[in-house]
């Protein structure tokens, strides 16, 4: 009997909740939903939580300005928990159930690859804010992080120059997954093109979260004793960096002897390290917190106020998130609607100021133009910009250096409208390539 009443109350409650949900849905007409698909738990939480906060901050800012198209923006946060298949599930939830107008999300390439089919099927829009290996261009995805030609190649060029120390011998060290492997493939081809003999390139991969770097650092030292200036190009990801840098410091590898240039180490990653032994090691990004620009100063101020932490640092993927968000806002204004097809078309050619004093533009291949900066680590955990490309570098979806992609181009405007157009065969390869 008692159980019966309990169940009945439960049913009533469920009914109430359901009606509440539908009424919320009815009201959803007054808001535009913005999906945030970043891991808030698991291994990647360390990097991705920050990006979630940045998008939340941008949404808040936009709402202060009166929202968009006369409606308020409403953030919808989901937690894919650093679990790649879960990314696809959560993306589906955002697009199908929550009906979000746009999604900001993903960090690792494997998580991006896992959500691609979902965005294609449900015709959503994804802004991907992290530097990645390139070799991709998808109609529903906008890549606001660096492609290899906006990070890796300029970094190598810098090290080859007189200011960078005229490096002749290269260690390509990375974590064993798709981004480092592809980047290193491109770099190796590039170095060989530049006349570096094969025996002067050492490639080394380590598992995720590798913590015992003694042998590898000793190997790098050994490789560096061939009498030629040696540098390490590091695509080591995430947590493994801290013990790597600690070991470099311990074994006395100084930046002026063997500099390490990293593509995944920013202000956030250095927060857990004593940077005094690392002064002079390098990082290549499109943004540093130390960039002197009024827009950047303003952004840092807003960010530190938003997080209520006056010491909170900013980094490159955060800037990429900001650029992506602003581009989306501009495109929606231009299109006058949040309809995905119209916004996707409107996004190409959109120009918004970045945080280092330039104006970034969304290109027809869904990548953007960015400046490339090389920074040296300072004792306070910040970077000192020692080199900068003279202008903005347009992102390349397909590397012209690799044989299997040199004929490909991506162009999402008419008449090509293709992510992997073969310029020699003059036809769109389409999905057959995958």
């Amino acid at each position, binding site marked *: 009997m008692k159980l019966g009443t309990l169940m009945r109350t439960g049913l009533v409650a469920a009914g109430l909740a359901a009606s509440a949900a539908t009424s919320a849905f009815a009201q959803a007409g007054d808001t535009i939903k913005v999906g945030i698909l970043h891991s*808030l*738990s*698991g*291994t990647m*939480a*360390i990097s991705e*939580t*920050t990006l979630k906060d940045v998008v939340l901050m941008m949404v808040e800012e936009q709402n202060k300005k009166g929202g968009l198209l006369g409606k308020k923006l409403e953030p919808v946060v989901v937690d894919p928990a650093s679990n790649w298949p879960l990314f696809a599930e959560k993306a589906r939830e955002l697009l199908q159930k929550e009906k979000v107008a746009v999604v900001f999300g993903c960090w690792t390439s494997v998580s991006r690859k896992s959500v691609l089919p979902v965005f294609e099927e449900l015709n959503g829009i994804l802004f991907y804010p992290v530097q990645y290996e390139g070799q991709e261009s998808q109609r529903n995805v906008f890549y606001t992080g660096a492609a290899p030609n906006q990070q890796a190649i300029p970094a190598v060029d810098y090290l080859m120059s*007189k*200011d*960078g*120390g005229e490096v002749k011998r290269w260690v390509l060290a990375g974590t*064993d997954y798709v981004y480092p492997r592809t980047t290193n493939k491109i770099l190796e081809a590039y170095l060989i093109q530049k006349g570096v003999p094969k025996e002067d390139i050492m490639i*080394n*991969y*380590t*598992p995720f*979260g*590798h*913590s*015992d770097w*003694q*042998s*590898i650092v*000793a*190997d790098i*030292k*050994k490789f*560096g*004793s*061939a*009498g*030629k200036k040696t540098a390490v190009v590091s695509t080591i990801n995430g*947590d493994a960096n*801290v*013990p790597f840098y*600690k070991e470099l410091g*311990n*074994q*006395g590898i100084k*930046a*002026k*002897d063997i*500099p390490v240039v990293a593509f995944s180490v920013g202000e*956030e*990653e250095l*927060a*857990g*390290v*004593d940077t005094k032994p690392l*002064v*002079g090691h*390098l990082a290549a990004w499109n943004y540093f917190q130390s960039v002197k620009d009024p827009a950047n100063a303003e952004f840092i101020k807003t960010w530190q106020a938003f997080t209520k932490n006056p010491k909170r640092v900013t980094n490159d993927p955060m800037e990429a998130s900001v650029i992506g968000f602003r581009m989306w806002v501009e495109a929606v204004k231009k299109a006058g609607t949040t309809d995905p097809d119209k916004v996707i078309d409107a996004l190409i050619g959109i120009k918004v100021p970045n945080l280092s004093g330039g104006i970034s533009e969304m290109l027809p291949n869904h990548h953007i133009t960015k400046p490339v900066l090389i920074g*040296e680590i*300072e*004792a306070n955990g910040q970077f*000192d910009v*020692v080199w900068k490309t003279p202008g903005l570098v347009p992102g390349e979806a397909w590397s012209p250096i690799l044989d299997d992609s040199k004929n490909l181009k991506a162009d999402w405007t008419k008449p090509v409208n293709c992510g992997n157009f073969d310029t020699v065969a003059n036809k769109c390869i389409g999905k057959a390539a995958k």
Partner: protein
Amino acid sequence: MQSLRPFSVLLSVVASLALAGAALAADLATLVGNLTSGGLSEREAAITALAASGEERAAPILEALAAGQLYVRTSDKVAVIGKADGNRLALVDAISGSPAGNAVEADLERVRVNNRLRGTIEAAVGSLTLMSPNAKVRLSAAESLFKRRDPAALPALDQALAAEKDPRIKRAMTEARAAVVLATADAPAAQKLAAIGVLRDRADRDSLGVLNAAASAASDAEVKAAALAAAGSIEQTLAAWQMAQNVWYGISLGSVLLLAAIGLAITFGTMGVINMAHGEMVMLGAYTTFVVQEVIRTSAPHLFDVSLAIALPLAFVVSGAIGILIERTIIRFLYGRPLDTLLATWGLSLVLQQAVRSIFGSSNREVGAPSWMSGAFQLGQLNITYGRLWIVVFSLVVFAALILILRKTPLGLYMRAVTQNRPMASAVGIRTPRVDALTFGLGSGIAGLAGVALSQIDNVSPNLGQGYIIDSFMVVVFGGVGNLFGTLIGALTLGVVNKFLEPYAGAVLGKILVLVFIIMFIQRRPRGLFALKGRSVE
């Protein structure tokens, strides 16, 4: 004025090499002015000019520049050297060397340098300080000249060699001179051959680098052959040292595995609890260290060097107490149900991780190394870092202490009694539930101690424990469940095997090979290396 002679020699050499004559006549103020104005590209000439000026202040100014301590005061554009003094910088006038008050960093503009300039400065300071009255400074000057191999330093080196009395420094200078000679393209072949001999006797990685460079640059066939032969002989010596190095790295890795696994050897090994939250106990220990260091940083900075000693007992208590709590509230209901225990502790580990993430944030926390744990020393050609050495020592001490507890204390006696025969122990009046809780607490507390040590080499992040849990189980199972010595031998064996595989197979394949090896091994000997015999097995 004898001490100025090398400078004048150097000056003439440098002048003839690169510099505009005008800079020579300039006084110190102009030289420093040139140094602090202009961009990175003009700074190199300014550094060389200052070094060649023969001014007494040149060396300290350049050293400050390399260390990032040379500033221009925004208010009056005076060049100052600033050293950290609490929150402010204590200033010294760069030109006169007299104190110039203090300032906050925001009121100063730092004179920037990059890697290449740091190298130039190292060579310049090396030449300038070769005649310093301080033996240590002379030694480091010789060492930096060895590294930089700047041909312009040769006259200064000759001068210093003639005056040097200390045999150790003399040798360093001779070696530096040899390196410089080999890097000078037009040095006579006879000198180069002698230099090759000097470097062959030095026989370390650095000299190998110099010889390899010399061999590839040499135009003289005889020199080339000699350099190659010397490089070959050094490589042979180093190959032998490499073996020793692998063993040391293996022991070091083994000690880390031992520390991570030793607590598990108690909870899993003797109690039979599959404790997936073991890694999180390690993490809690590491976070305790972080909290202790934070408190010390803000309230008693002079205690920083003993922060780890303070953290050790606290970490033991924190992790141990949480361990006892877990045992009393969850695990004791699940004894004899290994699958349920596994799931419950796995869930618990996620809860603990997320709790720490909520409290401390998801980013890494910085745990500093006390001065006695930073740096490295050289044993032959073996580079041993103090941090690793202390961790090896610490793991052995913890191991010994644990053995003592188990063998010599009443608690240890009860533990062994309960794990070996629970009904009988209970029958003779041992309060088995209490012993269970204490045993679990002890295992967890030791995991906390491991966390203090691991905070020195790994990230202090919520994921810290996850990285060690698999390895810990591997060690305990491999060594033999229930046998502490098995854990010791197992950890060291796995460490050494891993480090011998890594250079040949790479880190990824090496790890796979070790796993395959353990699977095969467990097939042959399901009870591990040292199986317990007798009644307790059942």
